[in-house]
């Protein structure tokens, strides 16, 4: 537990005066994401610790190097959780990296992404200025939403020093149902179930089975389970197996690229057909997120992310139109005029 803000700011100041590009590294658990860049490391791994946590306010504030697993432990003591349930990456993943790479777990369609729980953050910009945006309250519309702008920015706008997150009560009950149906049938059912008043926190299709996780109050979960089993023949999955399955989905462990394989990720309309993306796939987020392993780009006409593996010098994110691209470049310049932070990490031109 140490507050290294002053030291980090100093390092940015030095990089600025010497014009040395930086590579922001936390626990280095997500080095496989984005493009590979080589620059002087600036490390937040030791910049850790929960700054404040008030269970009745449903808010936790922590330094960016704090591990997700440590946050989860602190929250569990008060029966609370991170609503976006991000991957922990072998217990190494940090909250700063989670925000920068926009990581959310299986409950994303119902409980939102990181941005939906992010209330505020501290940031060191390319002028080596320490700034705070947002806050620790639930609603705040003073000034532009620079807090949420960081989600998915891959560190391009500055170094995140600390974050405030809205947390939620732990679920009292949890169960998982499994249904033996094929991909096409699952995709028919997913949007319909997803948009009913059911306590669903995960719908996934993997290797011929559809997994539906229900979480909430005991009576609500039981009522929903019996209702779904009446609609479609299925079974209750053993609690230990269920926990392990959803852990693997969350940790992105079900599909792992080997050799020259690439893990491709697609997010799009939940009702897009199964043929949209060829091959055996993991369908998550009730159809809105799909993963497939393939050596070559599996579909030309889809906005796919080359998530893991393959050539990391090439562009790995979907192409961006001219206007979006111009705005992202101008924003980068507004925060980081000297091009210090993670240059080229999300796009070669950014």
């Amino acid at each position, binding site marked *: 537990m140490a507050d290294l803000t002053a030291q980090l700011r100093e390092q940015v100041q030095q990089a600025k005066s010497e014009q040395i590009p930086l590579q922001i590294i936390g626990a280095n658990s997500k080095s496989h994401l984005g493009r590979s860049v080589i620059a002087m490391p600036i490390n937040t791994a030791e910049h850790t610790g929960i700054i404040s946590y008030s269970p009745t306010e449903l808010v936790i504030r922590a330094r960016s190097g704090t591990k997700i697993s440590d946050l989860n432990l602190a929250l569990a003591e008060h029966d609370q959780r991170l609503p976006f349930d991000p991957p922990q990456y072998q217990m190494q993943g940090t909250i700063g990296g989670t925000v920068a790479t926009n990581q959310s777990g299986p409950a994303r369609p119902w409980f939102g992404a990181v941005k939906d729980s992010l209330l505020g953050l501290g940031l060191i910009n390319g002028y080596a200025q320490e*700034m705070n945006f947002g806050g620790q309250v639930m609603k705040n*519309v003073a000034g532009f939403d620079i807090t949420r702008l960081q989600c998915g920015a891959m560190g391009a706008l500055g170094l995140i020093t600390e974050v405030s997150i809205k947390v939620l009560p732990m679920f009292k009950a949890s169960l998982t149902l499994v249904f033996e149906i094929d991909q096409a049938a699952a995709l028919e059912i997913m949007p319909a179930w997803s948009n009913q008043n059911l306590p669903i926190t995960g719908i996934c299709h993997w290797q011929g089975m559809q997994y539906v996780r229900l979480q909430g109050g*005991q009576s609500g979960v039981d009522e929903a389970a019996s209702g779904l089993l009446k609609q479609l023949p299925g079974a209750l999955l053993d609690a230990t197996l269920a926990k392990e399955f959803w852990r693997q989905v969350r940790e992105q462990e079900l599909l792992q690229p080997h050799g020259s394989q690439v893990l491709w990720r697609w997010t799009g309309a939940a009702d897009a057909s199964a043929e949209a993306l060829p091959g055996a796939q993991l369908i998550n987020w009730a159809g809105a997120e799909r993963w497939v392993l393939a050596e070559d780009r599996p579909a030309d006409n889809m906005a796919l992310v080359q998530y893991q593996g393959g050539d990391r010098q090439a562009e790995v994110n979907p192409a961006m139109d001219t206007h979006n691209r111009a705005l*992202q470049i101008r924003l980068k310049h507004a925060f980081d005029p000297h091009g210090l932070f993670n240059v080229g990490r999300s796009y070669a031109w950014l």
Partner: protein
Amino acid sequence: MGQPTPNFVDLISALQAMLPVASLLVDDENQRPFECDGLAVYQQLPLVTVIPETLLQVQEILRLCCLHKVPLVPRGAGTGLCAGAMPHAHGVLLVMTKFDKILHINERTAEATVQPGVRNLALSEASEPYGLYYAPDPSSQIACTIGGNVAENSGGVHCLKYGLTVNNLLQVSMVTIEGELVTFGGDGLDAAGMDLLSLVAGSEGLLGVVVEIKVKLLPRAPRVQVLMAAYSNVTAAGDAVAALIGQGIIPAGLEMMDHLAIKAAEDFVKVGYPIDAQALLICELDGTDAEVEEQLQTVSQCFTDYGAYQIRVAKDDQEAAALWQGRKAAFPAVGRISPDYYCMDGTIPRGQVAHVLTRISELSQHYGLAVANVFHAGDGNLHPLILFDASIDGQLAQAEALGGDILTLCVDVGGTITGEHGVGLEKMPQMPYQFSDAELAQFRRLKAAFDPYELLNPGKGIPTLKYCQEYRSLHNG
């Protein structure tokens, strides 16, 4: 009408050439209805008002403003409460109310694509046949537009559980000051790169003009249960709110009113509020029968444990509507007991509610102006209503000063000067209090990335460097 500049003369001829006569208002009489938004103490006639009907017209209007360097202020229904849509004396007012079509409701994926001029409530009504609704529900939902909701990142009584506008947005198309159409977000839940979709939410028309919006719809809950709890002191009610949330219950809505607001509302709509109560909590639970029943027991117990002397559980929809009606009518109710009122919008940590209310009461005595408090207790968003009489010399200034003190108080206890109404023109004086010079400079650079000539809604939202310097010399000197 202000003094036309040479640029403006060229602009107006170009506008006349491209727009139908009815879409262009130049005389004072026709522009008068647009001189202010919901915060009527700030008024200004624009040089010209345009009411376009097509996307191409909007693009051309922005292109012309950019070419001639003429300021432009976008406006929806004008229900905003921070003078964010007040016209610019030397600029164009762009009224987007003709863009009022719901373009598509996707029943399967529970999504709707709308034009910005669609009224908030109209979207929920159109979604009703599919068993769906649009969750953000600001008090002005009968009149306010979705475009305006995006600009202000509007909340409402249900945002405790279902989030603000930003949490329900999927895609936004916007015209830049250069007249280019740009789209943020998409069919998927997460697009690559910086989150410009979230940035547009709450940007108060400073970054571009929103022309199309895709939002998430929610399934209507099978059961909605409303209950009311009366307290003989405000602190106990505040503690009950913190305890309830601490116990893991997130109601769909959790509202609080103080004695003055309760009395004004009851006198106005007569829904059976206990007028002797010092504080009233109105709580809405939603979900399936089983879920609601389970929560209702916990909530009632918690309210009782924290000293509620009366709990009323609505027996039917009619009674639930009545309990809500008093809360929803609180603003006009206060309007009946005072010639004018000024609505504030600070947010504070929930645990500070009792302290802040005590302090507001002291400030109220100091300024000699009564304050009624109505607020979204669940998320700590206060709406103190300052009662005053604008016809009495100096009272408006006193009300503004009291309001300013309340907002800085919110910042002092770890909160913010605006939870959902926006900064607009109104809260510019408090921006340098909440933000450092470096932070404000970052906001200005961000704006310049979208609007290099400072033409979009200038003078609102983000104070200039000069403004900040003057503020600091005044307050530190």
